[in-house]
């Protein structure tokens, strides 16, 4: 049998009718009735996919892979294994590594590590400012021109709060079709902030992170993007008020996109009553009203994409007092299930919408030509097969990520990724890691695993 030819039989394409897909030499060779009778199909490995949904490989616009610098939290290898298992074929690696990804050298290193691992496309995000310090623009052009071909720039974790610096960044990235992804957090309004400011923080005596600190920055930034005619992406939108501002901006024709995390679609600040730092995240978990507004905004397109904000931390950074704990949650291996639970099982979305918010649009924002493509003949074979009827209980200790900080621990969730095809190669089969794709330059290398 040909090792690089797969015949997927009877998968519901984007949740629609069951059809065959023939994958050969990294592309979709045929779809539908002609697939099985295609000349390449004779040698194909057959995958029976009755009851499974075929979707384009997911693209995460917001991932923390921690390497270089915090290899005790995650590495490119472990993080991309988690991504493949979660149904991803591309991730954007955030810039807050150590050293910060603010030079061509660092983004090329991360890019190379991603290619060596071979589980997904790793697209580094470049820092907007040197050292994420918010004082001086990093060499955005050098990162854009590097082998990593950076198009998304972000100081994520820290807001580019200086309005002049933000304006300049938005203007400058137009030279190479870049986008600034803003972590919207007014720093003075959030000094010492520990959780959403509201009824729960009042009782718990934890410093409040008011919604206005997010909304005021988004309002400013959409106006700046309009003024300079640039592209803005808003990271992890978390409040109902932010949704209203983005909806207004889009109605004015402003080129803004926005993401929401799976955890902000499901969890609320009521969980903080436990003082368990697994629920500590930035932006913080908000209220039920915010959760419902975010779901509605994702369904109606006001929010464009899902971004996991996958943020693994070593256990000692969570097994401590709330105030001492690091902010962040893992998310790559639960994203599909949480989105199915909150958006599909609620009837707000179908699988075609799911493909739009997890693949097509995030690939477009990141300018990834080979990702987020339609499942049609001639297209790159980045495909996942999902069993929507599966149910599973989240166990962080069974995950591929090194982070054990999943806020969904112990929850039963729907949906399981059965297979992930990355460039026509199955990185995941039968819900388990297979072997990574070997890029041409690493084809001769022996895997260390």
């Amino acid at each position, binding site marked *: 049998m040909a090792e690089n030819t797969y015949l997927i039989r009877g998968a519901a394409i984007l949740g629609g009718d069951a059809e065959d897909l023939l994958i050969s030499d990294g592309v979709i060779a045929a779809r539908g009735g002609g697939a099985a009778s295609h000349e390449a199909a004779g040698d194909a490995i057959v995958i029976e996919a009755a009851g499974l949904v075929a979707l384009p490989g997911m693209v995460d616009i917001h991932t923390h892979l921690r390497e270089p610098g915090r290899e005790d939290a995650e590495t490119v290898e472990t993080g991309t294994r988690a991504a493949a298992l979660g149904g991803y074929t591309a991730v954007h690696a955030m810039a807050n590594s150590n050293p910060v990804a603010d030079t061509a050298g660092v983004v090329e290193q991360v890019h190379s590590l991603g290619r060596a691992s071979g589980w997904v496309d790793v697209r580094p995000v470049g820092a907007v400012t040197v050292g994420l310090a918010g004082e001086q623009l990093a060499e955005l052009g050098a990162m854009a021109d590097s082998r990593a071909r950076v198009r998304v720039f972000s100081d994520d974790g820290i807001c580019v709060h200086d309005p002049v610096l933000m304006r300049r960044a938005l203007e400058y990235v137009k030279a190479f079709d870049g986008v600034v992804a803003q972590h919207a957090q007014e720093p003075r309004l959030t000094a010492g902030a520990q959780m959403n400011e509201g009824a729960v923080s*009042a009782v718990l*005596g*934890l410093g409040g992170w008011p919604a206005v600190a997010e909304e005021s920055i988004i309002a400013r930034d959409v106006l700046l993007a309009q003024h300079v005619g640039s592209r803005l992406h808003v990271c992890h939108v978390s409040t109902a008020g932010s949704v209203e501002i983005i909806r207004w901006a889009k109605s004015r024709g402003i080129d803004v996109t926005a993401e929401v995390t799976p955890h902000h679609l499901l969890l609320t600040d009521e969980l903080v009553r436990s*003082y368990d730092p697994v629920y500590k995240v930035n932006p913080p978990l908000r209220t039920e009203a915010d959760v419902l507004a975010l779901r509605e905004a994702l369904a109606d397109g006001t929010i464009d994409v899902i971004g996991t904000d996958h943020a693994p931390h070593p256990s000692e*950074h969570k097994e401590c007092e*709330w*105030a*001492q704990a690091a902010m962040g949650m893992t998310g790559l291996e639960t994203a599909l299930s949480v989105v199915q639970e909150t958006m599909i099982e609620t009837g707000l979305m179908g699988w075609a919408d799911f493909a739009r918010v997890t693949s097509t649009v995030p690939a477009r924002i990141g300018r990834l030509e080979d990702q987020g493509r339609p499942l049609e003949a001639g297209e790159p074979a980045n495909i996942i097969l999902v069993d929507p009827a599966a149910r599973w209980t989240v166990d962080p200790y069974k995950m591929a990520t090194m982070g054990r900080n999943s806020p969904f621990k112990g929850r039963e969730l729907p949906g399981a990724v059965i297979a992930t095809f990355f460039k026509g190669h199955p990185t995941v089969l039968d819900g388990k890691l297979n072997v990574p794709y070997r890029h041409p330059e690493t084809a001769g290398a022996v895997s260390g695993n």
Partner: protein
Amino acid sequence: MKHLLSTQDLSAADAIRILDTAEEMAAVGEREVKKLPALRGRTVVNLFFEDSTRTRISFEAAAKRLSADVINFAAKGSSVSKGESLKDTAQTLAAIGADAVVIRHWASGAPHRLAATDWIDAAVINAGDGTHEHPTQALLDAFTMRRHWARLHGTESQGTDLSGMRVAIAGDVLHSRVARSNVWLLRTLGADVTLVAPPTLLPIGVEEWPCKVSYNLDDTLEAGVDAMMMLRVQGERMNASFFPSTREYSRRWGFDDTRLRALDELGLKDTIIMHPGPMNRGLEISSAAADSPRSTVLDQVRNGVSVRMAALYLLLSGDTRETVPATTPSSKESH
């Protein structure tokens, strides 16, 4: 009760049981030999991540009067990088054989973490956590109020609550663990609570609390108050734009000599003035008010030992019976 972490989840029955037990403990404090053998052989650790000599010596006196062995552990390290983690400290205390941990911590929720994790299996008493709660302070305040309220009604304190008592709490509610614990407990005991503060020092969300909120201390006094509790204004608030100046704060929200006279003029002859200490004389309370016969400041300190004895005794004495429901069983149908 396995732990005493907060007054929010304390039932009326448990609260009254602690206060009644404290009355029995108070009687011990009046004897020449102020000691009971109840906790002989048990080890109580005072784990203080934040300086508080007053609270620490109160717990120490309480544990010693019950014959417990007391270990004082001043863990000043305030960050993971500087010192031992809370988990390691807790596991160390577990290995030493602590039966109860009295924890004071600058981080809200730290006592909950000790109680909720498997780091240590000891009884945990919250001796003040961040800006969250200080349940034994609220219990000693309630004990002090209950004695006053019972005396006014010509009854014994035992078994009674604070039904109908009007309590005003004035000051920095936003950062006050004392205010939070008091609001929940006083409500549970039937008191009618009003918080008085500048709007900057009230938390967003206070409107959902079971109390009234006022920005005007004089209006609150005029409406009638049976206990007036003043909260300490922390030094670090003074330069963070919570209020323009200490003088303005004092004029608008301090219990000064004018307001002390106003109590007499308003005919509020039985109103007591409370303060958890340490006081900023001349800022939130005038010396004349603090030293007046209305002041219960030293009673509160004295009662603190009794209340803490009661808490330690009930958590450690092996009395594991379930909490009696607050409702009266009226018929057999409920079975």
